[in-house]
């Protein structure tokens, strides 16, 4: 297989057409002093056989979650992906299609998005879902922007227990745009401090209270109390959730959430190198005209047959320019489809089973790690399938030693704090562990034994 962009003959013809005889002559107006004057130091081209061997040897240097025992989470999880997911998603009709610029001729794509939206609504308990956003972080920030449009208040109160990278994304948008971020409320016992939240809401200038539950440390926030505080202060309540746990916990709608967002990677999407992600975004119907992104609707065509259309695209960038509700006017269609197929494959009972298994295993591992005496619990909060412990030693050394033994030993809070401070005291020894339904008792017991022996 050769890739030759231009033949010598074509190059000669182009040079003749513009009236120069050599490529060098084309660049002659660039001063000698700033030109690179030696040959590029590149190896010779490879044959296909050589190239195949080289790429295989490079790929062989990867150590993936398939070969290691992974306790990594913090937004990107090692859940099992049923083989039917890849099989459906890999159909060329889905796999090669780009975002539908002539949407109504892409009925299959639209229907898949419509099914995805319907499932997200069922999962979150909200009225309307959009066709998806880029990832959890962008969905989170878009929720803040939407809340500002609705309340006409541009100051956001964000829990500092939200994923630090999401907070960083919020700060980036705020820095370049119209949002302000209020001083972060304190963290007590691994969750946001309710009294401090109430105090910061009391001025009545907050557009939205933004929380994540379970939060970055794995702990459940008191959504019922937080939702009431937000609404009493005239603010919207924006809740970020883990979609797998919605298989067993009350949907955020039960706590009065106005906008629900989250990272959809756990729903059948590969962890890859931490992406691409899938931002899901759902809200109450009364806010739909301020919702970012696109929405697929179901209708009937002129013959009365079921048909799918892009609804509310009058608010998208190609029509509304700078007045658009968002500058994300595409979506992660293939990732949304993947989530859709995953949810259809596992079903509500399957999702419940996955969540229950992960939760039970996480609680087992936490108890076992504490029993080694190598770890200390920084708080006693309710958690899902992810929890945080303080390590009695150097976290980086522990990570290296466990990697050599075939384990990915959780996410170092200090590493993530390089992006954004969490506001939690003594964070440098904290490690966030995630335990999905894939982990076996044998793997966990082996991990505990090895880490205790360090």
């Amino acid at each position, binding site marked *: 297989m050769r890739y030759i962009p231009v033949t010598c003959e074509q190059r000669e013809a182009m040079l003749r057409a513009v009236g120069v005889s050599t490529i060098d002559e084309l660049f002659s107006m660039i001063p000698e002093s700033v030109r690179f004057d030696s040959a590029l130091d590149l190896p010779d081209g490879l044959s296909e056989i050589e190239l195949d061997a080289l790429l295989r040897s490079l790929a062989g240097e990867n150590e993936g979650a398939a070969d290691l025992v992974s306790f990594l989470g913090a937004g990107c999880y090692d859940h099992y992906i049923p083989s039917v997911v890849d099989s459906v998603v890999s159909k060329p009709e889905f796999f090669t299609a780009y975002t539908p610029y002539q949407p109504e001729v892409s009925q299959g794509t639209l229907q898949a998005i419509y099914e995805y939206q319907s499932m997200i609504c069922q999962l979150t308990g909200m009225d309307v879902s959009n066709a998806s956003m880029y990832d959890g972080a962008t969905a989170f920030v878009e929720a803040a922007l939407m809340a500002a449009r609705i309340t006409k208040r541009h100051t956001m109160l964000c829990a500092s227990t939200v994923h630090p990278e999401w907070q960083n994304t919020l700060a980036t948008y705020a820095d370049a745009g119209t949002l302000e971020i209020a001083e972060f409320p304190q963290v007590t016992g691994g969750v946001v401090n309710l009294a401090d939240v109430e105090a910061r809401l009391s001025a009545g200038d907050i557009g939205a209270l933004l929380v994540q539950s379970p939060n970055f440390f794995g702990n459940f926030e008191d959504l019922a109390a937080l939702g009431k505080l937000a609404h009493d202060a005239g603010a919207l309540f924006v809740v970020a959730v883990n979609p797998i746990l919605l298989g067993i916990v009350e949907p955020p709608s039960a706590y009065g959430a106005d906008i629900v967002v989250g990272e959809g990677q756990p729903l059948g999407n590969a962890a890859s190198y931490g992406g691409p992600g899938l931002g899901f975004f759902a809200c109450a119907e009364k806010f739909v*005209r301020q919702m970012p992104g696109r929405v697929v609707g179901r209708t009937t065509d002129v013959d009365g047959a079921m048909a799918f259309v892009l609804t509310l695209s*009058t*608010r998208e960038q190609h*029509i*509304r320019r700078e*007045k658009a509700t968002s500058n994300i006017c595409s979506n992660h269609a293939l990732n949304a489809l993947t989530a859709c197929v995953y949810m259809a494959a596992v079903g509500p009972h399957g999702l419940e089973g996955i969540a229950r298994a992960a939760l039970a295993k996480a609680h087992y591992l936490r108890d076992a790690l504490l029993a080694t005496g190598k770890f200390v619990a920084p708080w006693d909060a309710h958690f899902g399938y992810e929890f945080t412990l303080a390590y009695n030693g150097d976290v980086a050394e522990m990570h290296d030693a466990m990697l050599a033994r075939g384990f990915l030993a959780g996410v170092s809070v200090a590493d993530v704090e390089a992006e954004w401070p969490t506001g939690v005291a003594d964070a440098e020894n904290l490690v966030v562990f995630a335990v999905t339904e894939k982990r076996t008792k044998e793997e966990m017991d082996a991990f505990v034994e090895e880490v205790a022996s360090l």
Partner: protein
Amino acid sequence: MAHPNDRVYSKEHEWVVADGDIATIGISSFAQDQLGEVVYVDLPSEGDSLSAGDSFGEIESVKSVSELFAPVSGEVVEVNSALSDSPETVNSDPHGDGWMIKLRMEDAGELSALLSAEDYDAFITEG
């Protein structure tokens, strides 16, 4: 299509009926016809203060979303909340029940800068 001559018009296709210092504002029959079926009207809050030329809301039809511009300056004293449930009134009765906001005008002299029905009809015919 002659527009009623009991009011004045802006080149942005809003009409104004003045009663003392209260100005009632809507969009012209021509404008609603150009927009097509209106599905949503976003209006300001009572108490908002507007200057002539400010955007005071937006109107969405099945075809597009357009800004609404205040033809005169003043404070919003009333909004037509019935339009949130029945925005199609803007199509069926643009010069009557389809009104949008009432302003307490700061300067009734601004009205003289607006077009008479005759001039507005001529303006849209030039198009």
